[in-house]
């Protein structure tokens, strides 16, 4: 904000709002988003059921495609962009993503670690007798 002090500022945008453009351009934006989303979804479903790609890469491919599609939805449907009028919305999103990754990544990490360190179930049963 300090770099634009006193200069005529661009007004902020509410999340979901777009820059003022014609209706045709806006419909086109949604159509592009829909097309990309369909493409990514179709790829995802195809990859999940195919034998054409190296099998261990499939989970990674599905996750990457999902993240890409979430990005497409954010940009083309929710109009969260990196423009200067969108800084607050993007910062809030970044914080949300941080928490989401901490919760999911942290849970997986801790639980995998606990699983590794836990005594196999049959031995545990044996001790309780």
């Amino acid at each position, binding site marked *: 904000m300090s770099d634009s002090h006193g200069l005529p500022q661009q007004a902020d945008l509410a999340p979901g709002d777009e820059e003022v453009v014609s209706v045709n351009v806006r419909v086109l934006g949604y159509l592009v988003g829909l097309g990309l989303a369909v493409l990514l979804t179709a790829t995802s479903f195809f990859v999940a059921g195919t034998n054409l790609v190296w099998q261990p890469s499939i989970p990674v491919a599905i996750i990457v495609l999902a993240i890409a599609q*979430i990005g497409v939805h*954010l940009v083309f*449907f929710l109009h969260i962009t990196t423009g200067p009028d969108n800084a607050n919305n993007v910062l809030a999103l970044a914080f949300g993503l941080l928490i989401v990754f901490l919760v*999911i990544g942290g849970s997986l990490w801790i639980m995998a670690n606990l699983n590794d360190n836990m005594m196999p179930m049959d031995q545990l049963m044996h001790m309780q007798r």
Partner: protein
Amino acid sequence: MAVAAVASARGYDPHLIGLEDVSHDGPASKRIIAGYGFWIFILSDMVMFSCFFAAFAVLSGQTAGGPTGAELFNLRNVAIETAFLLCSSFACGMASIAAEVRYQLWFQVAMVVTCLLGIGFLIIEFHEFADLIARGAGPSRSAFLSSFFALVGCHGAHVSAGILWLLTMMAQVFAKGFRADILRRFLCFALFWHALDIIWVAIFSVVYLLGSAA
């Protein structure tokens, strides 16, 4: 231009301290405040969903000798659900444009399409749940199925609430027209509906596709 002129007249002044006509924008418009507040709510909703996702990810292998995802899931149904929700999101976008240009008929048509696709999604999901329970794979069968029903059911509950909100917005726009306060509510609704589609992308990828692949 004026800024540059003043700055150069006073010599080097990178922080514009000498500038006299510093003007402030004043508080943000109500539309921005309402939209931003609702955006924060959506992000906190996503944080809540992340807990369900974390529970599912941790428990997805704990089938307690019961059926696994690969045995239960019908990917054809999931693909149809995905298509419904994606087209519904697109129709909601068309309704946003119609609202902005104040086109009542187009708005109502787009909202009806959004609503029907959302209801179609819910019907398929309800059938899937009923089918799983009938096959003895209800939420009490295993930890995997508990977390599955909790996660997917929570998304379904959100979609149901969204449809009630959608019908309310149709009625309000019909009865009160495109007033500023109604348009703010609709902005929030559109954010909510698109966000649900984002959650669904994560669900069909993590729960169904990864669940079937594993």
